[in-house]
């Protein structure tokens, strides 16, 4: 194995980094408390279940009234009409005919209520479950999933994001998102043209070079870098790399997801989930519609409509949907009242009520949870807090929402601070 060379780190007492230590810390992610060992046993069981999560992030915060909570015929409704879906009684905005046809798989949460009406802060809240207060950098939910459900020795990253996203925060590089920009192609620089033998020799020399630098006082940096090189090396020869690449994907399937960045990203997501990657994020941008909300929505919606509906269908047909949580959301909602901006009116930031979609992983489809009033101003039934959402995400992933994470200084923090699983979400 090529990576043996890089693993072969034998430092003296002063360096404090032996091969055994290295493997242990790599396996555990963080240093060992007694709780952790029990935890690990539990985690092994979890990994066998093969649960995954795909997050489709609509960056910029899509309007709830132009997505899953239309209010036609009211002062705030605007030009948006509503359409009937596959599930009787569930009506959504007319920009989304294909989602409407897949509604049996989807639970619509119409009564989300948040606290952060700025993009950066909302993004943080909805990705980590924590608000941006103080200096603690909470991990992306994907990093927590990668740590809990991923294989630490995996030959491809346990968390892939198609498009930039948040970091693993205090959980570190082991579970950091691996980011790609162009779906359907191999990640940059994974191909090495050097012969195996030569590469092995190079790595062996490198590891000796590294151990000397570690001894000179850079233990932590060398340790991190060795982990990264180990992962990079595993990845370069991984048979699962082909999950990133469409060479063996029928053209019909590529068409079915739509040729857009989002559609192709979702196809990569399905392929990665098939390859047992536990968390994939797909970023779709352009949802910050302060002006021209109706025309922009008509332009942006089809890509997501096609890609997401096809993803659900595809996952279902492959028997993956029952183990895969699919989430589609943005950072908050938009003002029910239409503004007076030029060239055409739009909607501004609004966090008091917004909506999102959840599917798969035991979630009961074809239902709507929560209700807003006629004008879309207030929640009148079953409000859902971000904590409740994270409780539900954890339940779908069979993860313990009360688990403690440890910051680098050892301060324990709970994965989710409070809340309860959304009532009626699971069948």
């Amino acid at each position, binding site marked *: 194995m090529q990576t043996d060379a890089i693993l072969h780190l034998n430092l003296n007492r002063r360096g404090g980094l032996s091969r055994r230590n290295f493997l242990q810390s790599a396996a555990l992610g963080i240093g060992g408390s007694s709780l952790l060992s029990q935890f690990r046993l539990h985690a092994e069981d979890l990994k066998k279940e093969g649960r995954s999560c795909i997050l489709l992030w609509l960056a910029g915060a899509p309007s709830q009234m132009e997505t899953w909570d239309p209010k036609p015929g009211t002062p705030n409704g605007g030009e948006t009409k509503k359409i009937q879906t596959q599930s009787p009684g569930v009506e959504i905005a007319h920009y989304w005919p294909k989602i409407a046809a897949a509604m049996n798989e989807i639970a619509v949460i119409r009564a989300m209520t948040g606290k952060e009406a700025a993009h950066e802060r909302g993004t943080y809240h909805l990705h980590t479950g924590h608000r941006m207060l103080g200096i603690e950098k909470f991990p992306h939910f994907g990093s927590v999933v990668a740590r809990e459900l991923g294989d630490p020795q995996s030959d491809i990253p346990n968390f892939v994001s198609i498009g930039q996203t948040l970091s693993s925060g205090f959980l570190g590089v082991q579970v950091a998102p691996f980011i790609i920009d162009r779906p359907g192609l191999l990640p940059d620089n994974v191909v090495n043209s050097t012969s195996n033998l030569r590469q092995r020799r190079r790595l062996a020399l490198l590891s000796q070079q590294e151990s000397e630098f570690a001894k000179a006082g*850079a233990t932590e940096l060398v340790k*991190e870098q060795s982990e990264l090189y180990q992962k990079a090396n595993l990845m370069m020869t991984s048979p699962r790399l082909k999950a990133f690449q469409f060479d063996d994907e029928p053209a019909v399937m590529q068409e079915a997801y739509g040729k857009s960045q989002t559609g192709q990203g979702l196809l990569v997501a399905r392929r990665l989930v098939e390859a047992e990657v536990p968390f994939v994020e797909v970023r779709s941008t352009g949802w910050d519609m302060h002006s021209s909300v109706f025309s922009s929505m008509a332009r942006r919606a089809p890509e997501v409509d096609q890609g997401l509906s096809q993803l659900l269908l595809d996952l279902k047909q492959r028997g993956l949907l029952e183990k895969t949580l699919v989430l589609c959301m943005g950072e908050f909602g938009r003002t029910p009242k239409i503004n007076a901006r030029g060239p055409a009116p739009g909607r501004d930031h609004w966090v008091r009520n917004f909506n999102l979609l959840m599917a798969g992983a035991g979630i009961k489809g074809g239902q709507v949870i929560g209700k807003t009033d006629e004008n879309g101003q207030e929640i009148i039934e079953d409000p859902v807090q971000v904590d409740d959402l994270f409780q539900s995400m954890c339940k779908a992933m069979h993860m313990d929402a009360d688990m403690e994470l440890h910051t680098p200084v050892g301060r324990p923090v709970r994965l989710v601070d409070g809340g309860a699983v959304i009532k009626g979400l699971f069948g």
Partner: protein
Amino acid sequence: MLKRRSSSQWIILAALICLIISVPSSAAPKKRAAPKTPPLNLPPLKTQEQKMQLLGYIRQTMPTRRIAQRINFSSADLDQALEQELGPAAQTLAQTIDDETFIRRVSLDLTGQLPAPEKIEDFIKDQSRGKRSDLIDELLESPAYGRKWARYWTSVIFYESEANRRRVDPQALEDWLAEQFNKGAPWDYITVMLISATPERNKAVRNDYGQDFGPNNFVLACENKSTELASQTARIFMGISIKCAECHDHPFDNWKREQFHELAAFFHPYTYKMPDQTDPKIQTVVQPRFLLGEKPHEKMKADARRVSIAAYLAYNPKNYWFARAYVNRIWSELIGDGFYDVDSLGPDSEVIHKPVVNRIAANFRYKDFDPKWVFRLIMNSKVYQREMRTSNSAAELFTAVRPSRLRPDVIANSVENLIGEDQSIRKEIMQAFDMNPSLPQDALEGSIQQALLLMNNQELQTRLSQSELKQQLIKISSDTELVDSLYLNVLARHATPSERERNLSYLRDSEKREEAVDDLLWVLLNSTEFRTKR
């Protein structure tokens, strides 16, 4: 300095001095009906020159100027002050670095570039006593110094900016800053230029928002939004985090939500309204007020108000945060750890070894905010010249220098040092090694992409294999000399005996010498040391 002063200028001067010096006094026992404020007859403050002239007057009245001549704070004083603060931890001070580690460290820090092999040899041979100090002076005078720090500050200003790219010009800002740093412009002057800028849109020209003029770009990076300007001014120039106070009282600090909005009002061209915490539809008018309570003249126009914020920021002697924020940033960059996280200071009690940083900051003010003075002070100290070591406990901080990740532009320079200029590789490195310049070193992480880029990038490998450096290396007939030259060129130091031995046996065991040289280059390029300041 102006020779003649017209009477109207004196009036301005007097008015502004009153603004600066008067810290809100407790109100008179009985409130009388407030007399109508007379209008303030300031001349137009449209151009930067006019603004700077006004600020120049204010600067001259700084009380600190008078005592400055009598004050001295040397690198030795700094070492003494710190060792006193460190207490028992001073027993574990790391050794002083050798000459070749020093020249690499100081070159990377001041210029972002590795020293050339001849320069290293000359420096080692040099027998003069003050050679380290002389080298610092020499590098501070090189154009690369201004460029390196201009890049740093441009990145600080733009890293989290969400401004539309067509409306900003980070390059213009970088060029302007480089010029300022190189000519030794004082930090207060630079800051004041940035904060008081009032970029105007030229509607006749497409996408012209005044971004061509470098100093306009701080305001443009904040999209000219009052709230953003308030939080970024506090973050970058005072090192305090008041952003959360936009929505609610700071959870563990003194900054109140109202204070945040009072600061934002300062930047607002008209009447500023603070949205209600629970119902944003309800809005209340808020009067501008600086963080320490300073109020601008009621009748001040928006332009003059910006000048006055800049004055309150830089010249109110009670605002020690201003000088300290600069000192802490430079210290963090040079030592690898700060007295506090550079832009997220909560309550002042989070500052470690506060007396030390406050003393440096106070002296920075006495030295007329001369940026080069701070570099000289720190770099000539023993603190800076210690070997690296990672310390994760607060007690051990500053007993050694933290091995720090080099910034993306510095890594790109080091790579170009090996392969020659290459725009596409530079761009890839800038992307893969991208990092937030305001995050502390211990929060930074490497990535798999970085490893893959340096290991496998085809163009990089080809260029490395065809590089002038490699051609030179293979021409050296003695393997020992080859290895020495390799280490000097790539890592800017001599190989240690064990490294030399290892590399020599690698060369011996390889069938093709040329391929082996490629391998050795590859190994050093991929070493942690290559991307680290040791």
